[in-house]
């Protein structure tokens, strides 16, 4: 159950995009960092919850996946630049034809996977297109 414990420790980051920022230089970090690589000992690191909006930098459509994800193929993975500036890799929930570079996205709460039928269910953040109204 090593992965259950690991997931639990990372829960705040996965559920709510909780990262950190350095007050000294203004950098944002996700996943959270305890030390600012730029400021080192001069850096003042505080927790920061990202707003959850950003845009697609680059993406790929996955047609073959590990067994526990098999039901979801094809799905789209993207590098997303959050509006605060930091980048992360996440699934974007949309049709493969729909995604494009620069597409605006927002965070949603979804199932990320599960440890079989008896195991724990992993929840966390994925992204969906922001629809123009």
């Amino acid at each position, binding site marked *: 159950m090593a992965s259950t414990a690991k997931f639990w420790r990372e829960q705040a980051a996965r559920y709510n995009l909780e990262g950190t920022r350095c007050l000294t230089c203004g950098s944002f970090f996700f996943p959270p960092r305890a030390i600012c690589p730029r400021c080192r000992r001069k850096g003042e690191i505080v927790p920061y919850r990202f707003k959850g909006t950003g845009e697609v930098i680059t993406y790929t459509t996955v047609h073959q996946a590990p067994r526990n994800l098999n039901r979801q193929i094809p799905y789209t993975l993207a590098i997303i630049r959050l509006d605060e500036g930091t980048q992360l890799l996440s699934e974007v929930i949309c049709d493969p034809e729909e995604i494009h570079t620069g597409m605006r996205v927002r965070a949603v709460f979804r199932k990320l996977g599960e440890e079989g039928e008896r195991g724990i*269910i992993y929840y966390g953040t994925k992204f969906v297109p922001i629809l123009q109204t």
Partner: protein
Amino acid sequence: MTGIVSYGVYVPSYRIRVEDIANQWGEDPEVIKSGLMVEKKSVPDLDEDTATMSVEAARTAILRANINPEYIGAIYVGSESHPYAVKPTATIVGAAIGASNSFTAADFEFACKAGTAAIQTCIGLVALKKIKYGLAIGADVAQASPGDALEYTAGAGSAAYIIGDENVIAEIDDFTSFTSDTPDFWRRDLQKYPSHGGRFTGEPAYFRHIISATKDLMAKTGLKPTDFDYAVFHQPNGKFPLKAAKSLGFDAEQLKPGLIVTHIGNTYSASSLIGLAAVLDHALPGQRILMTSFGSGAGSDSFAITVTDAIETVRDRDKGPRVEDFLTRIKYVDYAGYAKHLSKIRM
């Protein structure tokens, strides 16, 4: 007075048409559509369940009224499709909305009325000043056995209500309940799909409980059907609430704004609560709403609600979608896609 401080709903974007289900089983689609007054139903995405939908609705409710989640002292999630048999959905919701750890929580189960039971519990705690805010959620991914009549209507959705006694957008003037031991619909432990008593689900179950709870409410409050601007009843299909409304003395105009089953199906614990949200999306200050839920087993909770001037403060569209927004941004799946989405095929 204690009432609703904010609300939010969530409906998955996938739909299946009733005719696609009817064709799968060789039934006449037109007969079924007109019999149920349902055209399509909502289908969850592969990675959506009662917990994810609860979180989405709760986040909208929090954002709309700019609630500090650390002031939420109770979280109750009503559903008959909690993802875990043991491990409360309410704990997942608490973590995902950024609540503190100083809240009480439990999952409620009473077929389709567990969400309104959660609201009643929150009203009690708020009225006693034990908590500042209570979060009550009704959410379900309704399961129906393939080929069962329930399959035409069993939908997915959620609604979250924040109960408090400051800045309420709608006062909850009073409520009543009517409960009995009625075996109209059930699911035994470890069974994937529910069973039901067929025709038994109508008169002795739905109608008896809805009508009794609503009559009790009117007797208790001294209000008549004409005192209400809107009426919302649990919506297992389109016909039942219309018939219940008529026999209670409400007309179709009072019912129409909250009748959403035609577009999303029966969302079980979320059904009457999404209907109420559709009404709150457009109601004017001072207007009165009657809402009566129904849960098999069986019971009904009936509420008299009065909209306040504060309603306008939570209706900014940028902060949360309205019920009607979930009715237009949709994608259709066929029966095969639907079966995959609801894991009806074992892989």
